[in-house]
């Protein structure tokens, strides 16, 4: 077994990525974007690829087929309704305004440039020759249509990203002016994800869930796909961009990580995505490609005002839960020591790291004392959802909480559905894992009173006070400091009870080259992989 990739936080329990379906976003411990200078922000079209990119220098036409075992099922191919955890299904058929390169830097995509002098008014220039899959040119009007469509989709999981857009206007055929409600240094990065994917205006009124209308390098083969099992894509012969390596892509749903490994080893698939440390050791001659950053495995206390489960509304109870979790035991038993047991939201090395909230925090006596002080000496119970890959760690945490009389009833769910369930208010708390998104995005998604993943409209004023100050910060240093304090406060209040930091990995068969997991993605970038021979 060969291991490739950066390890910012050690080996990880990457099978847990299934829970990305639940959170649909999260906060990175990397914080790459936030260190950008807060002045003129420009991405230009000069280097389309950056140092370290594995895209072949000589562009060969796409050839061969690749089959990838993935852990979550496709929900929708409408980028304005899709959860962030579904990005890999949509990335093949949609191009976004920008993209995140292999180095983690934001690069041009449909927008050959995206610039701003004040971080509020952004100018996007549309790349020459870009076309949608039906041959229609991608122009400024299409970008305006797509961003307006996203803003109008109030139920969109990307709603916080669209909410920052005050107006979108086509200056000419290839130039768009986007005015934000407030300065955002990370706007170019925000436009690299689902929110930045441009939808063909010709699809107006159509259901995009299985009929995508994008400018990406592949088309979706609906007739060749089997719902809930296998989804097929074919490379466009008229794709406007370059660098696409394979002609056919098949995303095969294999929920069980052991089955994904078996499929990889016995040659049924070429890439097994989302493998944990134990599974990574079983891939034989296959290469293991690790994600560039670690993520947080944590209990998200959604009902922190106690609307559904009154006990969870008490900060003493949430703190007791944190003290009751045997993080080192969970890490050793479930993750084979591959995670980093910690109470901190940001890993050491992150610009947001604060040592005051870092520790393992395991103290059963203190936990019982806090629970008694809160009036729950006899404990209480609540339901929590999980998916197969997260079941072991959820059961381990449930076992920890049971030591102080808290009964966490585990309810199995279909991977890919938890994000919507959380947004619908079905759960008071959920053990889940984040995905590489910036602190402002996670904050807007989950912590503010009107956040889409805050269905109970819970008030977290001590955090939101700091968060609003961070959003209004005038220097990068000030913003970093305020975000660090805001997230430390959220951890202290027990809105997020961190169990560990983990890193994802993918098994890649020999004969497949160019596989790299990009920042914020679940699986290797399928645009750049090639099949040898």
């Amino acid at each position, binding site marked *: 077994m060969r291991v490739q990739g950066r390890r910012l936080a050690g080996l990880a329990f990457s099978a847990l990525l299934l829970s990305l379906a639940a959170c649909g976003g999260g906060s990175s411990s990397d914080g790459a974007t936030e260190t950008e200078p807060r002045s003129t922000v420009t991405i230009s079209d000069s280097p389309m690829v950056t140092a370290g990119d594995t895209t072949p220098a000589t562009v060969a036409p796409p050839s061969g087929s690749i089959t990838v075992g993935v852990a979550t099922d496709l929900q929708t191919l409408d980028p304005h309704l899709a959860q962030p955890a579904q990005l890999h299904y949509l990335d093949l058929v949609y191009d976004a305004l920008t993209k995140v390169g292999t180095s983690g830097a934001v690069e041009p995509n449909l927008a050959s440039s995206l610039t701003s002098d004040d971080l509020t008014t952004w100018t996007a220039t549309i790349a020459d020759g870009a076309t949608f899959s039906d041959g229609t040119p991608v122009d400024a009007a299409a970008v305006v249509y797509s961003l307006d469509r996203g803003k109008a989709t109030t139920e969109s999981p990307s709603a916080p990203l669209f909410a920052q857009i005050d107006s979108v206007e086509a200056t000419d055929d290839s130039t768009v002016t986007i005015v934000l409600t407030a300065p955002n240094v990370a706007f170019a990065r925000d436009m690299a994800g689902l929110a930045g994917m441009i939808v063909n205006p010709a699809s107006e009124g159509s259901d995009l869930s299985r009929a995508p209308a994008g400018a990406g390098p592949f088309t979706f083969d609906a007739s060749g796909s089997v719902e809930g099992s296998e989804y097929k894509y074919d490379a466009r012969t008229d794709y406007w961009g370059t660098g696409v390596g394979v002609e056919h892509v098949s995303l095969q749903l294999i929920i069980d990580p052991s089955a994904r490994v078996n499929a990889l*080893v016995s040659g049924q698939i070429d890439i097994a995505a989302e493998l944990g440390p134990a599974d990574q050791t079983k891939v034989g001659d296959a290469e293991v490609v690790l994600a560039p950053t670690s993520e947080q495995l944590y209990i998200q206390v959604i009902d922190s005002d106690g609307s559904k489960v009154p006990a969870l509304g008490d900060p003493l109870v949430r703190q007791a839960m944190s003290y009751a979790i045997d993080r080192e035991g969970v890490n050793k038993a479930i993750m084979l020591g591959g995670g980093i047991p910690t109470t901190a939201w940001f890993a050491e090395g992150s610009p947001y790291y604060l040592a005051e909230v870092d520790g393992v925090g395991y103290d059963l006596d203190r936990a019982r004392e806090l629970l008694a002080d809160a009036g729950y000496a006899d404990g209480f119970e609540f339901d929590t959802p999980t998916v197969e890959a997260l079941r072991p760690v959820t059961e381990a945490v449930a076992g920890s909480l049971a030591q102080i009389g808290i009964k966490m009833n585990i309810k199995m769910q279909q991977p890919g559905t938890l994000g919507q369930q959380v947004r619908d208010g079905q759960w008071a708390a959920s053990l889940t894992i984040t995905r590489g998104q910036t602190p402002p995005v996670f904050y807007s998604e989950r912590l503010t009173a009107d956040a889409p993943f805050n*269905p109970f409209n819970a008030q977290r004023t001590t955090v939101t006070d700091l968060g609003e100050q961070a959003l209004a910060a005038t220097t990068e240093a000030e913003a970093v400091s305020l975000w660090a304090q805001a997230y430390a406060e959220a951890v202290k209040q027990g809105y997020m009870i961190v169990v560990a930091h983990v890193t994802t990995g993918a098994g890649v068969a020999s004969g497949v080259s160019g596989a790299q997991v990009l920042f914020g993605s679940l699986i290797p970038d399928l645009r750049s992989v090639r099949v040898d021979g």
Partner: protein
Amino acid sequence: MLTFILRRVLAVIPLVVIATAATFFMLQLSDVDPAVLRLGDSATEEQYGEVRAELGTDRPAVVQYVDWLSHAARFDFGESWKRPVPVMTMVHQRMPATLSLTLGAVLVTILIGLPLGIASGVRAGSTADSVITATASIGQAMPAFWTGLLLAAYVAIPTGWFPATGFVGPTASVGDWARSIILPSIALGISGAAALARQTRAAVAGVLRQPYVRTAVSVGYSRRSILGSDVLRNAAIPIVTVLGVQVSLLLGGSLIVEQVFVVPGLGSLAFSAILEKDLPVVLAVVTVAALLVTVVQLALDVLYGALDPRVRVR
């Protein structure tokens, strides 16, 4: 014989209606509201009402069932609550895998269970009988998922003879189709083979003790000819009965085995539909499974009639 078959065919109809009605009304007891599934908790009552009206779930349950039944009779199971796809399309896509797996498992059951049962029955009380009986007991106790995991880990991966996961349709490649269903079929059929072996052993040993068999032996007929012409025919009814039960159990067992071998069949469809609370899909799978079981039972009834004319008379 034709009247007999027609009578059995007609008997299938109320069976399917009862099975689907029971499932439908049990599902009605669940608290799943398709409007909430689609719109979430934050929609207005008016929006919920529109979705319920669109799906027809605002009508009385009996009316819904009759409407559903009238469509289901034309194999129209409506649209999935979770996916923008007709349920029948989903079922149709999954049928080849399930039928292949069921066929393979039945073959495994018969090809392993029957010879072992006969061999054990004709040697009742011998060491060979004891070994076969003990092996059958172990085989019957082995859960299909466990057998499947062992086969994947210790047969498929080390040898590479069979794929550890996946399914290839027979229209794509007959050879690959056969390779893809062999291990799941063994995992699914091994327990049934054990049950069939035990039942066959008991039936054969019982018939061999009958006075007419002893008489036939005493007048000089060979044991082989007696076994072929009398013993197996008389032992066939209980054997066929067990086989029928096993086929029904195979459909249930496929739910787990399909997960282990990542076979896109009805079992895995039902599994995900239950987790997603996609009731139309659950109902369709139950209906198809009920139909398959009743068709198998019908075939067995016909076989009973062929094996024993007294059944036809009744």
